[in-house]
Every structure is written in C-alpha cells, then in structure tokens.
C-alpha cells in the first residue's frame, strides 16, 4: 500500500468536516480541543493515509498539504 500523510494548518482550519467525509481511509477526525479561532480542527487520527489528496481537494480553506512516497520505478501507479 502507498504510504502518505497530511499536514494540516491547525490554526486556520474551521472544522467544517468536509475532509473527514471525503477521506476514503477514514483516518481524519476532529480534535478534542479548540484552535485560537475557536474551532475544533481536523487532525490525522490513524496512519492509514495513502496521500490520495481527496481531503485537500474539498478543503475550502486550503489548510491541507499532502505528502506521498515517491513512485517506484516500473510501478504502474
């Protein structure tokens, strides 16, 4: 399985949950505490992220940066 991860800018996230619904791996969730703007922010809860970028594509505030392991030579992906 391809390994990836996301880095979420917690201080600008508004906790709209659209990324949580969009994640096919169900590895995103809302935090238990608030950010400086008073929102519960999105965070990575499990290490099953594949770097599919679905969360970043639906994010209205562009807070998500997606990382993925480089393609291997000969890989069909």
């Amino acid at each position, binding site marked *: 399985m391809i390994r990836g991860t996301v880095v979420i800018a917690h201080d600008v996230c508004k*906790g709209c949950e659209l990324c949580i619904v969009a994640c096919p791996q169900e590895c995103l969730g809302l935090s238990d505490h608030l950010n400086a703007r008073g929102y519960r922010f999105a965070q990575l809860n499990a290490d099953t992220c594949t770097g599919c970028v679905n969360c970043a594509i639906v994010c209205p505030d*562009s807070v998500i*940066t997606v990382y*993925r392991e480089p393609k291997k030579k000969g890989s069909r992906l």
Partner: protein
Amino acid sequence: MENSTNGLEVVYEKVPTLTDTLMHYCPGCSHGVVHRVIMEVIHEMGITEQTIGVAPVGCSVFAYNYMNIDMQEAAHGRATAAATGVKRVHPDKFVFTYQGDGDLAAIGTGETIHTVNRGENILMVFVNNGVYGMTGGQMAPTTLAGMKTTTSPFGRDVATMGSPLRITELIANLPGALYVTRQSVHSTAAVRKLKKAIQLSFEYQKLNQGTCFIEVVSNCPSGWKMTPVESNQWLVENMFPVYPPGDIKVPKPPAVNN
C-alpha cells in the same frame, strides 16, 4: 497524530496565487473551494501575470484579498460591465468575473445578459447557492420553490414570488455564449470536473469567440441553517433536480485546435 514526512514528496499544497489572508467565509462554504480551483488553474497554466479578475458585491466581495492576482472591484451586479471595459482595454489579458446569485442573477441580470449577448470574450464564474448569504439568508431569484428563507418563512410561493431563475439556461440561448456549463463542488469528483471546465474556459478565451459561463451550484451552511456536510447532501437532493450539473452549450469541434 502527525506522521513523519521524511522521504515523502509533496503531492498537494496551497498555490502561490492564493494569499495567506484568512478567508472570512463561514466553515464549509463553497466559495473557498471555487477560489482555490480558479487560482490553481491560473497557476498551472502560468498566466498569473496575464489574468485580471473582477470581484463582485456579496459574500465574495473580498475575493481580491484572497486571490494573489490583479483584481478590480465592481459596483453591485456590474462586474461583467467592468470586465467588458478591462477586456477591451487589455484584449491580450485573461479576464474573469466572480459573482454570486444576488449579484449576477438579481441586481446584475441586465448587465449579465447584455454582456453575453455582445459575446464579450471573458469568463463569468457564477456561484449559485439559492440565498443572499451575506445579508442573512434572504430569498434570491434562484431560491427553490417552497424553500424557506428569512424573507419567505413559509417557503417560496411560486404563485406570488415566481419560479427559481435558471439564468444559465437563459444565457445558453444567446448567440454570444461560447461555452456554458453548470458544475458543483460538493464532492472530489465534482471539484475535479469544475477544474477542467475552468481550464477549458481559459483555453477558449484565447480563441476570442465568445463568452464562457460557468455556474457553480454551491452550498450556504449558514443561510440554509445546516452543517456543511448536511448542506452538501441537501444540495444533491434538492438543488440538482432544478439545477442539473453538466454542459449546456459547448462550442462546435472546429473551435478547438487539438
């Protein structure tokens, strides 16, 4: 938890055509996604220096604070008229307007129709969420029949208040319209389709053959009194029967030199 990014490559990040200013939009608002998709296309096509946007009045009145390109603010509803002037003075630049339904389909209906009728060579992005979001969720011309808003508390009564205005279909009938399409941003697939439509529109603008018009069926969690996730679900169930997504007018094949 945060995984280590060691040995991983960045596959998606915020484009430099978006500023670092915090957006004032409500959580889950489609405006943010539409802003980002337009700016991604401009960045990827490498036309940052050649593009001029025209901002409207409405929720997206501060679009010029978020888009890191040359922008012009226009009077309420007159974004297409301002864009006409910009494009005629700078015919070599890419010009687009960004308007909501209160701006484009209510106060600016006259300007909109006449701009398309003249076939001005601009792109018009029309974000339709069926209410006046900025002023507190009042009824707009595009409000669905029976839909409750603060000024139609018993639902929009078609007999006295008219039917939802499908301005995109209206515009597609005008000879000046080159490319007319209706998209949405409620899912990843929809966002990708919108991105393709915007890309295509900027390509068509090079051909100088008419107006491109993209309607984006959008949500308004605050105006509809729903969570962002619920509002996207409601959009699919209620907005799409009235505003079905898809291409309404596409140029005949010779228009594109592939």
